[in-house]
């Protein structure tokens, strides 16, 4: 059980900077999700913790130990790979037993030593029980389903009882139903094990549902780190605003107006009142953002045209044209009424729900 800390960590591959001076404190026993689109550097960051990539610059610590120069095989971490990377020529039992055979372990506060055959068997049995693998122990990975293989990969990781678990998109090869089920199980497993988990994904649903905290990366840089709800409610910049949320946040270019009535943004369909702007500047080029569930159809300052309506059962997504920009309104009203394609409508947003970003720096302004 240990914390992981990145202190100005940079990773370069030739001229390409994969991770750009990343500073991030992962707290002991935390479920930290590294989230970002492909190529954002999240996997590289994870592989540096694992020791599969060297650190070009900066300091990486696991617990209090600087691990920059410690080899992967000597770090107390376990990893679950996207492809699971099970040894295909070994049975499930042998797969799970491998890390117990190769490493030394401290038992009852004695100095680390190799485990005896009985101790290994006991640990494999315990782990198999935790993950419901008892019946599969003598099968080979080729004879398992995707979900079962994923469990074996998890078993091979937790049998070690390592300081830190690393998971690289472990759910991406599962079908949607199994993925949803495994998400819940992983959260339960984390609660049981009380170990630090660093989890890499490009799927914001995984991040939002499992993480204690989310670190969002783009182009090798940390964009924002915080609890899922905080990141959702107060995205630090335009990238985070657009990346988190499904359907994504509506963003409209506009100009900030400041007068005696307050601060508002002139956007193509009309004016939009905003709150809490740090330094109101009249005429400043901005991007206003409103989440689809915070836009409502009815009375409002914005005029728009309905282009299409998607009905999803529990809600409707109304696609509107707002002075040339497409925006989505998430309508959860019951009943068959509501807007139809071609309707002229008025849209409203509560001032407290309007996010304001600088058009040049993309940083949050309110």
């Amino acid at each position, binding site marked *: 059980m240990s914390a992981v800390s990145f202190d100005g960590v940079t990773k370069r591959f030739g001229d390409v900077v994969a991770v750009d001076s990343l500073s991030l404190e992962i707290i002991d026993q935390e479920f930290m999700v590294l989230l970002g689109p492909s190529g954002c550097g999240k996997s590289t960051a994870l592989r540096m913790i694992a020791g599969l990539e060297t650190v070009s610059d900066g300091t990486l610590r696991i617990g209090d130990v600087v691990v920059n120069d410690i080899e*992967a095989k000597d770090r107390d971490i376990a990893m679950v790979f996207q492809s699971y990377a099970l*040894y295909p*020529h070994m049975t499930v039992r042998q797969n799970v037993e491998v890390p117990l055979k190769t490493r030394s372990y401290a038992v009852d506060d004695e100095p680390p030593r190799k485990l005896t055959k009985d101790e290994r068997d006991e640990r494999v049995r315990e782990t198999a029980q935790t993950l419901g693998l008892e019946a599969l122990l003598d099968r080979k990975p080729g004879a398992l389903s995707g979900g079962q293989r994923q469990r074996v990969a998890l078993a091979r990781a937790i049998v070690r009882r390592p300081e830190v678990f690393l998971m690289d998109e472990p759910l991406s090869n599962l079908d949607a139903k199994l993925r949803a089920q495994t998400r819940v199980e992983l959260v339960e497993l984390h609660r049981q094990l009380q170990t630090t988990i660093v989890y890499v994904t490009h799927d914001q649903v995984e991040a939002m549902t499992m993480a204690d905290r989310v670190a969002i990366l783009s182009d090798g840089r940390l964009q924002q780190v915080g609890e899922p709800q905080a990141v959702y409610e107060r995205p630090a910049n335009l990238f985070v605003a657009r990346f988190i949320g499904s359907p994504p946040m509506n963003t409209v270019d506009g100009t900030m107006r400041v007068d005696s009535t307050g601060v508002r943004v002139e956007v193509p369909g009309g004016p939009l009142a905003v709150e809490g702007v740090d330094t109101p500047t009249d005429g400043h080029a901005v991007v206003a953002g409103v989440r689809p569930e915070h836009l409502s159809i009815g009375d409002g300052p914005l005029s728009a045209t309905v282009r299409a309506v998607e009905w999803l059962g529990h809600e409707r997504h109304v696609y509107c044209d707002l002075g040339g920009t497409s925006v989505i309104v998430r309508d959860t009203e019951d009943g068959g009424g509501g807007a139809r394609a071609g309707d002229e409508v008025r849209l409203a947003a509560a001032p407290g729900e309007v996010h304001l970003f600088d058009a040049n720096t993309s940083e949050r302004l309110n």
Partner: protein
Amino acid sequence: MTRATEAATPTDAALDDRPEPKKSFFRRRRTREAGLAALFLAPSVLIFSAFFFYPIGRIVYLGFFQQNQTRTRQRYVGFDQYREILTGNEFTDGLVITLKYVALTVPAGLVLGVLLAVAANRKLKGIKVFHAIFASTVATSVAVASIVWLVLINPTVGYFKVDWLRDTDMALFGVALSSIWQNLGLTFIIVIAGLQAIPEELNEAATIDGMGPVRRFFTVTLPMLSPALLFLVVVLTVFAFQAFAQIDILTDGGPAGSTETLVFKIFTLQQGGAIGEGSVMAVGLFVITFAAALGQFVLLERRVHYGSGEA
């Protein structure tokens, strides 16, 4: 089609209740499919017949006869010739030398090829040049390889000034050297292809599981290479059983017959007009080679892991 029908008949009772199946339809269809299958198979059957089945049959047939020196006449001698020759000293001596040759070339060639491939299987600039160099012996003819080694181990002008080829104890080893070298290209290509098919994540997982490079090699790499290694064991063994040109060029069976393998004996016998005796030996060699290859498959296949089975 038939399997589906069978699967649908779980008990005899159920069978009794069923209406009579439309047999004629299926039979007609099966006949038509069989005809089509035969048509597809015809080209390979033809080629195999002309170049494989007929010659084998012919050799077995010739083994029942004895020819005169000028091959103008032959007489039937039957199974006696098979019995005599296959239990005779000439055949068993040849077999022992052949087996020694297999033992000298196959393990050494395999180990060297794997070492070379493992050494060359890394991401370095210009490594492809080395791949090409290591693989190049595959494009060398046996004759060229033999001449190269003839010069290399020449006692007066050679690089290794040794007189192995005229030493009854060392001659077979000298010949084996050139074969090992010549087969190295093939071994290298097969093994490096096998290495490159091992997913990188498997090695990474092994590293994270705490394995050092040596342990990783024996726990992950070698088992993953097993299909390639099985193939190579069989092929190299068959190559060794069939070796002829290198012996002909390097030692001509000498000194004192110490490099006369079965193939070489067959050749000299048939050159001398003893077609029948040579044929018997050839049949003997065929059976032994076939049995060896089959035995290797049966024995080693159990320990071979094919593919990852990943979806």
